[in-house]
């Protein structure tokens, strides 16, 4: 937990409205674990006001590079979408708790929805170096082919890779969650790791609980401080009350989240 300055080296439009920021930030590259995030200030002014949280997509300690995947969805991210090389970002981070290690032989299943792929690319990358014989399977879902952002980077780090789109423009047609139960049945992973929209995560959590496969989810929530003070990013906890995405998360055991209160019955 610290603060750092990152310099934008290259902003790559990887899909319509999606940008991969290649930044130079040795401190964060060195300190980041897969699943952690940085809290990025968009400019010096007060509009937009709040920092934006982004999962680290890749961190390369050797080169000092930190990659962040940005989907332009509002004022802050639309401004980032115009930034040129040389732009300096004030970061807090790396923040939060990252992915927990898998039990056994790293026979794992990664389930990504849209830009939720970012922390899973870092995880897949890490598993390849941390385990002698990893076996990483991935399901990647999105509305259309364009939503399967950075899929080549993802697929390159997986032994098996399945794309699913709602309109059938790439891979199988349907929802990524439709493919999950059969995949668990087939490959019996030691752990399922998921990141994507809340509604997707809720279904993933339910399927994994049913199949008795441990599951970790990385969650997103509107955030104020990012350091645990404002309690703005709370999500409902199974144990009652709420947990903070910034501090207890963003990675949670799927069973820790009260999905019915999170997304409705």
């Amino acid at each position, binding site marked *: 937990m610290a603060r750092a300055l990152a310099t934008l080296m290259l902003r790559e439009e990887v899909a319509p409205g999606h940008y991969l920021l290649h930044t130079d930030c040795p401190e964060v590259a060195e300190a980041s674990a897969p699943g952690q995030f940085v809290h990025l200030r968009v400019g010096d002014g007060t509009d937009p*006001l*709040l920092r934006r949280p982004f999962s680290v997509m890749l961190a390369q300690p050797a080169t000092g590079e930190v990659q962040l995947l940005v989907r332009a969805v509002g004022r802050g991210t639309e401004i980032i979408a115009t930034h040129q090389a040389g732009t300096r970002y004030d970061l807090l981070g790396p923040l939060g708790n990252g992915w927990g290690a898998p039990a056994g032989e790293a026979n794992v299943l990664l389930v990504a929805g849209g830009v939720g792929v970012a922390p899973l690319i870092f995880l897949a990358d890490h598993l390849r170096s941390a385990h002698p014989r990893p076996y990483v399977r991935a399901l990647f879902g999105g509305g259309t082919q364009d939503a399967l952002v950075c899929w080549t980077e993802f697929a390159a780090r997986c032994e098996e890779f399945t794309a699913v789109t709602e309109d059938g423009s790439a891979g199988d047609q349907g929802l990524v969650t439709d493919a999950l139960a059969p995949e668990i049945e087939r490959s019996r992973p030691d752990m399922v790791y998921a990141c994507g929209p809340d509604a997707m995560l809720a279904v993933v959590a339910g399927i994994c609980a049913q199949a008795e496969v441990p599951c970790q989810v990385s969650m997103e929530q509107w955030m*104020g*401080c990012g350091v*645990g003070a*404002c309690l703005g990013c*709370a999500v409902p906890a199974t144990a009652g009350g709420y947990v903070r995405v910034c501090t207890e998360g963003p990675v949670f055991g799927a069973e820790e989240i009260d999905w019915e209160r999170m997304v409705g019955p």
Partner: protein
Amino acid sequence: MSAPDLSVEIAGVRLQNPVMSASGTFGYGMEYEPYLDLSILGAIVTKAVTLEERLGNPPPRVRETPAGMLNAIGLQNPGVEVFIRDKLPALRGVGVPVIVNISGRSVEEFVRVAQMLCVDGVAALEVNVSCPNVQEEGMYFGVDCDLTGRLTAAVVDACDRPVIVKLSPNVTDITSIARAAAEGGAHALSLINTLVGMSIDTERRRPHLGNVTGGLSGPAIRPIAVRMVHEVARAVDLPIIGMGGIANARDALEFILAGATAVAVGTMNFVEPSAMAAVIDGLADHCRRHGVARITDLVGALQVG
């Protein structure tokens, strides 16, 4: 010239400088220790503490707005006993005055919390009569003169610590509430709390916040806050802690010139965790540039006309 004297006194509590955290934006202090030397602060004002644990409101709890944000946390806190046991010891260790913000559903609840907080390490109480996110609670007191006066008097009786009453801007005439708090025996006033606001997701036709409405804070509300400090300072003879969108020393000086003895930094802590350090440095620099020996010489020094 020698270093300007930034120290001030609020209700008998000596502060090394007039800059403190605004309740609810700084947790219980320690969250910010990695980013800021807490010992440089004038005081630390905690997040609201209630008699029993509060779980808070369903998400989403925050939403950015132009130069500001809406929040509806719902007074989430572990309750006064846990606060005293788990949070206060570290806060005391910082070595600056700790002001504990308290809230409750009834006068009796406020009184019990105040009684329990009469312990070492608590320099003063800030009475939250103005939380906009919990129905029929603080806000209920803070928009009614009689209730504000009665609640203030009860808390003053309950604990020998100085009592600061935090005023709501969501009233027709803030000076009448300020007078009621003064008549109830308040030792100081803090203002403003957040303005009730709302933001709508037009695609989904739903409110952005789980609580539907929330409290608006940040630079967007600063002109309203400065105006209200100006009004209250002329109406009531009590020290004022001014707050509302302070991002730098210039903003803080607006409040001081309008009549605030001290200032609190709130939402900007989220944006820039070291914002208070910059405000303190900037105040000293301003005093030097203007040949001001004591920051108190600037309190209410606004010239009109």
